């Protein structure tokens, strides 16, 4: 894999969970690339496998029930699935960083904020304690936390949700990672705070030339912030294209359904549109195309019942996994 500006390249990643009721195939054959300095949004409903994909990149899947069954993940041209745990630890928090959905519980309540950021810094960089402390304080400034020197010695329970998420971001960027994975970073926050956090992420991305994998289910965020989009449904990517393409020319019926269900300003609607049916359980996927029971065009098509469409290129940079998309 030559370095033509691609930071992350995932090829045919599959992650399974072995449970008593059977093997849950949470992620199947997922492939996408992220280029340097760009934001890829991974969109989908709850339970479609987005978070599992992110955790698989970090190799944080809990090992007894879960396993990465197949695939390659190239980070800066090296397959990190082949790394030993020790090598992987040098990457985590250092070259690839992750922030999570629940800022209220993601910080350790018995340690000060400063010590938690310092821990991240001194783990990966050779700095004295004073230097690390100084760096941590600078990080807090960069994420626009007021009064950073006071916050450094405070405990997490004194901070609000938005503040804690900023602290998480500060911790994540403290070692200047090349890739930041943000797993629904604003879902648990108020709408006003959401905008602030996203602006912050934008700003950091530009100043650090950082790539971002943004996982979300909010299409509004996708429209504003993403360069490329990948839509996931039931463990597979069903559509992948640049952001504008997605909104102007959706190809997959699922994507069309999602866009259709957004409330439209300016028009009068008595009822919101929905996609009929429910998201399938990972232990009980339908045969053929996984979307076919809910698909307006495919539910009666025998081919959609039996054969699963692969992600194929339909036009430049636009991939879709649908038998009808190619027509």
């Amino acid at each position, binding site marked *: 894999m030559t370095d033509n500006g691609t930071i992350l390249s995932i090829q045919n990643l599959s992650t399974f969970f072995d449970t008593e009721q059977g093997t849950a195939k949470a992620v199947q054959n997922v492939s996408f690339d992220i280029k340097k300095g760009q934001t890829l949004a991974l969109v989908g409903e709850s339970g479609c496998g987005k978070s599992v994909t992110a955790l698989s990149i*970090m190799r*944080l899947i809990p090992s*007894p029930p879960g396993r990465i069954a197949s695939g390659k993940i190239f980070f800066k041209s090296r397959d990190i699935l082949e790394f030993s745990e020790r090598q992987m*630890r*040098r*990457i*985590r*928090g*250092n070259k690839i*960083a*992750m922030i*999570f959905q*629940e800022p209220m*519980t*993601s*910080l*350790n*309540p*018995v*340690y*000060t904020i400063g010590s938690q950021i310092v*821990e*991240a810094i001194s*783990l*990966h960089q050779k700095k004295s304690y004073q230097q690390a402390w100084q760096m941590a304080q600078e990080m807090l400034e960069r994420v626009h936390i007021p009064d950073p020197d006071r916050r450094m010695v405070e*405990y997490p*329970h004194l901070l609000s949700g938005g503040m804690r998420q900023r602290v*998480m971001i500060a*911790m994540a960027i403290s070692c200047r990672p090349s890739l930041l994975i943000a797993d629904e970073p604003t879902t648990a926050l108020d709408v006003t705070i959401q905008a602030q956090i996203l602006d912050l992420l934008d700003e950091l991305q530009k100043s650090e030339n950082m790539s971002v994998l943004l996982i979300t289910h909010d299409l509004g965020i996708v429209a504003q912030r993403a360069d490329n989009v990948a839509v996931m449904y039931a463990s597979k990517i069903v559509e992948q294209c640049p952001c504008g393409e997605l909104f102007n020319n959706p190809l997959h019926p699922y994507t069309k359904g999602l866009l259709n269900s957004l409330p439209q300003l300016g028009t009068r609607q008595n009822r919101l549109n929905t996609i009929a049916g429910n998201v399938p359980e990972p232990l009980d996927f339908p045969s053929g195309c996984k979307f076919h029971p809910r698909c307006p065009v495919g539910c009666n098509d025998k081919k959609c019942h039996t054969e699963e469409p692969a992600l194929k290129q339909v036009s430049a940079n636009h991939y879709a996994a649908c038998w009808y998309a190619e027509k």
Partner: protein
Amino acid sequence: MTTYIIRRILLMIPTILGITIMVFAISRVAPGDPVSLSMGPGGQLDAQRAADVRKARMALYGLDKPIHVQYAIWLKRVVQLDFGDSIKHHRPVIDLIAERLPVTITLNVISIIIIYIISIPLGIFSAVRQGRFSDKVSSVILFMLWSLPSMWAGQMLIGYFCGPTFKNWFPPAGLSSNFADALPFFPWLGDRLWHLTLPVICLSYSGFAYLTKQVRAGMLDNLRCDYIRTARAKGLDNWTVIFRHAFRNSLLPIITIMGTLLPAMIGGSVIIESIFSIPGMGRLAFEAITTRDYNVVMAVATTAGFLDLIGLLLADIAYAIADPRISFERIE
């Protein structure tokens, strides 16, 4: 922090008062008059002893006065540490307690230290190895230990290890051997520890089983928390995550458990000291009840309650030190 401690000590005072009221009430609610109570069923007391008992109780309680006055009289004496005289030993009760109390405290303190030293690593270890064979086996063994009645364990240990019938490795009774006073310090200490081995084992095994289970459960709960995921995402290795992050959070409940362990162990001292003939407070209570020495019984009950409260206070102080939310209360 100091305000917290002072506040806790002040809160102890009504509880101590309450304990004295309760002990006093028990002695008053008891049916029968003092003489027949002292005799027990079917016994005969000679006139002299009966007169002694009546006199002692009259002096201590002022039985002819109204009940709250009686309580006030008794309380006043108790505050001056005057619990009256023991009918059986004919000595002030407070002397008896002063002799026996250190023994019980030593026994309990050694047991608690051993419990914590062994349980914490074992609990962490079985939490990390959850689901594997060693964890399942240790869970079963710990559960059986927890359910094992202490008097049975004590008796079986004595029967098997102390007597001529099977093995003769440990002394069956007493705190030191007869010749111990003549020994220099270290052999004396060794002899004392040899005598204490079996009693400490009996006193601590059920607390140890309970604490290990709680440590394991606490660690498992904490290992599921989100901040552990954050710690791993930072790139920390497994043992650092376990000890620096998960364990530090489990520390608080473990300290709180000392509040449950201590009363159970002080209560258990009665049985253990009786079986192993150790001259501590528990055995004093046992003897006093058998000989119906009421002054001693009430004094021991009050002292046990007081001991317990002190233990709880120490546990609370340790908790306050460990919990940043209390120890760093700022005046904002």
